[in-house]
């Protein structure tokens, strides 16, 4: 099976945005998204307050992004109930991203898996270094312990978001990702920090890391991802030809 390069698109009140350490940074036009060279698309609603209005703006943004796309789509952002999942299903989602950083999400995740199947759910954990990150601060809880807690109650893949690396272009947090990848036999999606193609190549070399996300860099030029994909492939990276 190929490893994947995923577009993680953050949408704030209907507008595609960029973040640095999870703080909204710039706004972007979705015209720049070089969609067809990805393997999957994840859209996250990062609006501070979610209302009927913000949901409809989120849907409009998704419709625009997916207009000419036949890629798998995962949607997330504030999923806390079965109704939230059903709403995102109507938006055309194939999978749902549920933030499991806090333990109070566990009962709901169990219910969601029972109703929609494990393979419809991507669990996500936010972290800063080796600690989990929640509500704008890093906690005193160790990331690996949280992975251990949710191992038997999670979606089919685990998305690790490094808030520390987010928007920095310094590369993925391979040290912490690798600790998890080496300890648990579960498919990982790594996000936060990509700045050049070799970051993608290096991180995808790690066993159990099935995918990496780019959420900022592809906005800079319309050719970035197609060029990077070619570079990763020419060095022997296991990504598909698009």
């Amino acid at each position: 099976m190929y490893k994947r390069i995923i577009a993680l698109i953050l949408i704030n009140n209907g507008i595609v945005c960029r973040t640095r350490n999870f703080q909204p940074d710039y706004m972007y036009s979705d015209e720049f998204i070089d969609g067809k060279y990805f393997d999957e698309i994840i859209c996250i609603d990062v609006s501070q307050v979610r209302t009927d209005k913000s949901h409809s703006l989120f849907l409009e943004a998704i419709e625009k992004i997916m207009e000419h796309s036949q890629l798998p789509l995962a949607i997330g952002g504030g999923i806390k109930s079965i109704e939230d999942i059903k709403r995102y299903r109507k938006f055309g989602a194939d999978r749902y991203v549920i933030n499991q950083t806090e333990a109070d999400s566990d009962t709901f995740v169990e219910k969601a898996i029972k109703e929609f199947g494990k393979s419809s759910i991507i669990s996500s954990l936010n972290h800063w270094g080796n600690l989990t990150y929640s509500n704008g601060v890093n906690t005193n809880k160790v990331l690996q312990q949280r992975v251990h807690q949710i191992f038997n109650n999670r979606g089919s893949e685990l998305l690790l978001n490094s808030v520390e690396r987010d928007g920095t272009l310094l590369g993925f947090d391979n040290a912490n990702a690798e600790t998890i990848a080496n300890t648990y036999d579960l498919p990982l999606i790594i996000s936060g920090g990509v700045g050049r193609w070799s970051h993608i190549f290096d991180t995808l070399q790690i066993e159990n890391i099935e995918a990496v996300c780019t959420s900022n860099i592809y906005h800079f030029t319309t050719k970035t991802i197609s060029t990077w994909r070619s570079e990763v492939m020419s060095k022997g990276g296991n990504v598909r030809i698009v």
Partner: protein
Amino acid sequence: MEPKVNKNVTILEVGFGNLPSLDRVLKQLNVDTKNVESAQDILEAEHLMIPGVGSFETAMNYLNQNNYGQTLKKRALELKLPTLGICLGAQIMFDIGQEGKIMKGLSIFNGTIENLTNKLAKKKSHTGWDKVKFRQDFLGVSENENIDFFFNHDYIMIPDNKDDISAECDYGGNFAVALKKYSCYAVQFHPEKSQKSGLAILSNFLGLKHV
């Protein structure tokens, strides 16, 4: 871009499906969709697609409660009308499913549906893009072609009759991912999520004429 086809397709969703996701792609192909509302719709549909994700048990309960199971068999085996099952929609065409409780399927194909961890040397879901090796011509794809498609599943189709198998995938061992019998097509991958190779499969299915 694939050539656009002006068509209507009837859709029977089973389980908790990704119907809006399939709808979006069919709209791109300029195809109008109609949902099954009665057994008669199943018999009269020129082209029927059965998408679905979720459990085999839930899907079969739904079909049995609405008396759609026998109608689907009649459509496929007697009337031989074009029918395309995708993912769970393909699996329900088998004899027996083991997701949830052990449950009888439609028996259009003979064989069972089993958890991949019991059959393949892998302990994880088959999620992502993978290479599909075609053994027979299948909806516009020629024998011996290798084409990439998107997958997301934990259970696999184990057909009794190897002649039914049109394509296989290798994930810790080979397993069937595309089958055909009469005008009935079963695919484990998601053509609606597989860019141009998927569009080609869908267009070819919609171009099938009933003879």
